């Protein structure tokens, strides 16, 4: 499979701040790739490095095998959907979408026809004559998408494109984006801080923290087999067990992750003190204290709910405990 975008030991430093630190990464052609991480983790900087808005302090980025160091943004086969959409306020929707084609020298009628097609693709026909200011957030987002797609980029970069939308719209757009990507076969690189979004849409996910990649893998991999305590905590809201406790349980002094839904109440087993409970609808989350290690677990309907301060016994299946061995690389 062809590599669409490759990072080779790429760093981007701002003075003493290492926004991106020695990142190695391969994005395959045709893949829906998500960059996931908290704000300030370096994911957006990585996207801007691909687009060419930033230059690496060291290392190299290849786009379809071509070194990109001397290629300005306007000569890269990538297009971006910006977080604030960056629609040109002085142009109507049609001219916004046709902008790239106009710059490329396409005749007016031809590019207007293509723009209308792209607007149909994003389910926004009939809006061509409006100004961006007359559109809702969701509509602007679609225009931004059409404006990028009409240029048939080899890679589409999306910078938190759903961040400004409300929950319902966001969920609908997730489904649409995913099917659009399948339909067009374009490589998508998608930046988000929402782990649910990344897991549900992406073929593969890279989890960022402090300018470094913590783990790259399929959503299943990342969720079930987090490689670092950070990934376990950020992606799955998993319990991260301290090495001391893991040693007592398994004999190995490493961090381990344990998903809350894998923990059961039992008649005997590990003793735990209930420190709180929160009702989440279908389930109730209990927070527990086991010898100073805090744990959370999910309790389904039909169970009687222990009160704060109660002593309970817990257990789980052996394979539910995932050891995070740093040497596993």
């Amino acid at each position: 499979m062809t590599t669409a975008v490759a990072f080779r030991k790429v760093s981007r430093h701002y003075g003493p701040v290492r926004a991106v630190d020695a990142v190695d990464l391969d994005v395959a052609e045709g893949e829906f790739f998500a960059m996931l991480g908290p704000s300030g983790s370096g994911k957006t900087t990585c996207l801007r490095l691909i687009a060419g808005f930033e230059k690496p302090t060291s290392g190299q980025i290849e786009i379809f095998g071509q070194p990109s160091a001397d290629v300005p943004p306007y000569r890269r086969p990538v297009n971006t959907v910006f977080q604030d959409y960056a629609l040109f306020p002085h142009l109507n929707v049609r001219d916004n979408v046709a902008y790239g084609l106009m710059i490329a020298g396409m005749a007016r009628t031809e590019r207007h026809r293509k723009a209308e097609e792209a607007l149909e693709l994003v389910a926004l026909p009939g809006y061509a004559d409006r100004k961006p200011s007359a559109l809702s957030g969701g509509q602007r987002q679609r225009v931004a998408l059409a404006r990028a797609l009409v240029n048939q980029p080899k890679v589409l970069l999306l910078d938190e494109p759903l961040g400004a939308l409300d929950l319902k719209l966001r969920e609908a757009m997730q489904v649409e984006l995913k099917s659009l990507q399948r339909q067009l076969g374009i490589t998508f690189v998608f930046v988000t801080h929402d782990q649910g979004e990344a897991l549900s849409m992406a073929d593969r996910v890279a989890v960022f923290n402090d300018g470094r990649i913590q783990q790259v893998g399929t959503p299943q991999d990342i969720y079930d087999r987090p490689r670092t305590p950070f990934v376990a905590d950020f992606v799955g809201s998993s319990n991260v067990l301290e090495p001391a406790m893991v040693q007592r349980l398994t004999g190995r002094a490493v961090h381990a992750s344990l998903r809350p839904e894998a923990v059961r109440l039992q008649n005997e087993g590990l003793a735990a003190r209930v420190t709180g409970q929160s009702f989440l609808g279908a389930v109730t989350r209990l927070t527990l204290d086991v010898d100073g290690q805090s744990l959370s677990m999910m309790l389904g309907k039909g169970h009687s709910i222990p009160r704060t301060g109660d002593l309970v016994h817990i257990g789980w299946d052996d394979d539910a405990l995932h050891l995070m061995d740093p040497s596993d690389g």
Partner: protein
Amino acid sequence: MAEAALHTAPTLAGRASDLLWRRQGLLILLLILPPALWLGIIYLGSLFALLAQSFFSIDEFSGLINYEFTLSTYAELFRPSNLDIIIRTVVMASAVTIAAAIIGFPVAYYAARYARGRWKALFYLGVMLPLWSSYLVKVYSWKLILAKEGIVSWLFETLGLTWLLEAYLSLPILGGNSLSVSWTGTFLVFLYVWIPFMILPIQAALERVPVSMLEASGDLGANPGQTFRHVLLPLALPGVVAGSIFTFSLTLGDYIIPQIVGTSARMIGQAVYQFQGTAGNIPLAAAFAVVPILIMGVYLYVARRMGAFNAL
């Protein structure tokens, strides 16, 4: 593919653009160079040339400039007659500034807090138009108003209060032969010409006070007067200080208003003008010009510490 064309041999503009992208410092340099050269050479160059001359002196017999470093020109500033000029100007500038703040505050306050929609625009224009109206025409209008046969005298006469005006004009310092040759006249013209410069920054500062803050004060038991004194006024103060920078500085350097409306006693601007012109004493004129610069330097330093620059 649309972008395929972009990969072909770039045009000259394309190549220049590539160069600017690769070396972004070059772009900034190209942008900043013309204005920096213009202001740096023409303006700052002239300014330093002038200031340098304040360290020369003038030969009293030949009237020629003696190009040797000396502080004697500065010492001349402390002669009683010159010191009078400086003190007179500073007192005038202070009086104008205080009066402008007192009269300007209600206008700014009303515009910021109560005027809405069409009225707001009207208030804004109501301040902008006088601000940008011709300076000389504004001065001229007061020459008409304050003239002996002008509208002020007529008003006092119509009201049967001529005796009051005459009593005022007979006061020392403030009065004079008529209002147009009195310090009161000079003061009024200064106040009139510079007051829009006071209103705009105050309005800007007041507009940044959120209504919820005033409501919180009321909620905590303050009556409107207390809210005004303890919440609004401290928050508006940077705006007042910012406005005072203009009124003070503009009054310090003006030489046309006191020449047209006022007494024969000079202010700093007139002194500078006469020393460089008729008297041909460029070093003393330069030294005099340094005085407002120094005063404004101190003033700006204090204003900055009070946070006035955020209100500009």
